[in-house]
């Protein structure tokens, strides 16, 4: 690069080339910072606008009454759907994780791959699948079918999250249990799972947060209902929040939009709450597990 011969006495000042390199570096650094700022700003804008528009629609009646005044039945319905889905997905997810960690062996890798594929599975495909499997066979939409679809979406989140914390359980605990003559199943039920409880709860809450806002499967499986009163029959469709928002956004009427903002605010608030809660729980259980 045509540098002059090295002169030990020369002062260490930046030459033109170094100045350019430093400038490039600084530009790159501010570019990266800008990227992060954009992401946080987008989150801020979305949450802020949902908050501002949603709060004005909010009232006690809005939360308790049925359509057309409020979203009470839809709230109850979403709670029911998510509850049933959790009851299905949590045992299966935890057991899959136990299998991976305790019995894994050669099958662990393909099973993990399956879970990863499931995690990236488009939710609309899950909806189409459950529609083909259950709704077409029974000729009607039902809450139980919708819950199964949501459970399928939650499953990989719970299984992978649980697997991660089960791996954090120190091997010393397994060995101690074995040395005391405790059989495998007793060790899993009384030592390993209890010490991973915090992580399992975190994974389940994250799964719930994901399932609560899932709309695509519900449009196919649980979308024809009357939102004016509460219905809990799991064999029939139940009103729910995501489809309520979707329908209102398609209707394009100003007061419908106001209600959609309100429903969106309630849903987003609950989901954010669940996420923050899961994070706090995870941090606490990590701290407890760390030596």
């Amino acid at each position, binding site marked *: 690069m045509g540098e002059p011969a090295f002169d030990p006495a020369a002062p260490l000042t930046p030459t033109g080339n170094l100045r350019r390199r430093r400038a490039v570096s600084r530009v*790159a650094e501010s570019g990266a910072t800008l990227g992060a700022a954009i992401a*946080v700003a987008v989150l801020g804008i979305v949450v802020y606008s949902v908050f501002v528009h949603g709060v004005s629609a909010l009232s006690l009646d809005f939360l308790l009454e049925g359509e057309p005044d409020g979203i009470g039945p839809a709230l109850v319905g979403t709670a029911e759907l998510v509850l049933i889905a959790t009851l299905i997905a949590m045992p*299966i997810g935890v*057991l899959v994780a136990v299998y991976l960690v305790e019995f894994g062996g050669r099958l662990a890798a393909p099973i993990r791959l*399956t879970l990863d594929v*499931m995690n990236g599975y488009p939710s*609309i495909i899950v909806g189409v699948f459950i529609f083909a499997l259950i709704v077409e066979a029974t000729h009607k939409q039902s809450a139980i079918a919708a819950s199964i679809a949501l459970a399928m979406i939650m499953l990989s989140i719970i299984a992978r999250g649980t697997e991660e914390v089960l791996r954090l359980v120190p091997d010393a605990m397994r060995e101690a249990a074995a040395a005391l003559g405790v059989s495998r199943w007793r060790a899993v*039920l009384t030592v390993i799972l209890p010490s991973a409880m915090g992580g399992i709860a975190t994974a389940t809450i994250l799964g719930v947060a994901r399932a609560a806002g899932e709309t695509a499967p519900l449009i196919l499986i649980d979308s024809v209902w009357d939102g004016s009163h509460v219905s809990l029959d799991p064999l029939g469709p139940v009103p729910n929040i995501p489809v309520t928002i979707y329908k209102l956004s398609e209707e394009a009427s100003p007061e419908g939009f106001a209600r959609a903002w309100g429903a969106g605010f309630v849903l987003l608030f609950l989901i954010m709450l669940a996420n923050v809660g899961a*994070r706090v729980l995870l941090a606490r259980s990590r701290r407890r597990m760390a030596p």
Partner: protein
Amino acid sequence: MSSATSPAAPGAARPAARRSRDWRRTFDRFGDGALYGVCALAVAIAVGALALSAYQVFDHASPAISKFGLGFLTSAEWQPNFDVYGAGTLLYGTLVSSFFALLIGGPIAISIGLYLSLLAPKGVRGVVSPLVEMLAAIPSVILGFWGLILLAPFVQQHVEPFLHDNFGFIPLFGAPQTTGASVFTASLILTIMVIPIIASISRDLFLAVPRDVQDGASALGATRWEVVRGIVLPTTAPGVIAASLLGLGRALGEAIAVSQLIGAGEKIDVSLFETGDTLAARIANQFPGAITEMHKASLYYCAAILLAIVLASNLGAQWIGRRFDYRRMAE
């Protein structure tokens, strides 16, 4: 537990204790077997559900597959009134909207990853990292609704005219339409969905780059950017590509937000500012109202195509990610 933990008892002298131990041993053997059985059953259910879903989708699509064949992929004709279907427009819309989401979102997400792993002070990282991940928690129906009410009008009034006036010579930036619903707006929403996925994976990748190698480069006089370009990015490139493929899979399969924003167009337009449609959005829009068998079968066919594309991109991501892990272990 006490009988198992007590020091070796003179077994023969206490038949009752031995009997209880024998019983316990049988019980434990049964318990171990049962636990294994239940876990294996859970795995079978999970794997079975996935396999069954793929089978069901393709099975229900078979009437349309046998009627339209592979021409379905290229035909842009979608006329429920005449029972003629082709997914060309949808396939094009799916690929284009996801591609632009990745094109815009990828660099932003990677720079977020760089910022969080290398630049941010610890306190800032602890706040910004969860916020970026929180972006992924916003339900798509809310993001879509937000996009419909606030983003689409803004894009239509400001962004699209700006791009058209300044870069109108590129055919992609045609004249803006009257509503904000367009492939471009849908891409922007997909961008928001893709960013947190790629950002959080690439942040973890960058954090895993050995510190001493970076310090070595710095000691040789490399600037921060040169460390990133010369060491951090090359060593993590396969992982970043895998992360991008995962993000792509998310964008390809998004149904709700896209159907709210893309405008359900019926033809292929070069301009991004025209309406279009994607496979997933078309399924969400028309599935509940499909009456004829062929209409439904065609929608199943769309689902099968989508499934194949998303599987390919996810498996590709896994494959690259795994090879990347091996290479690192060898080092």
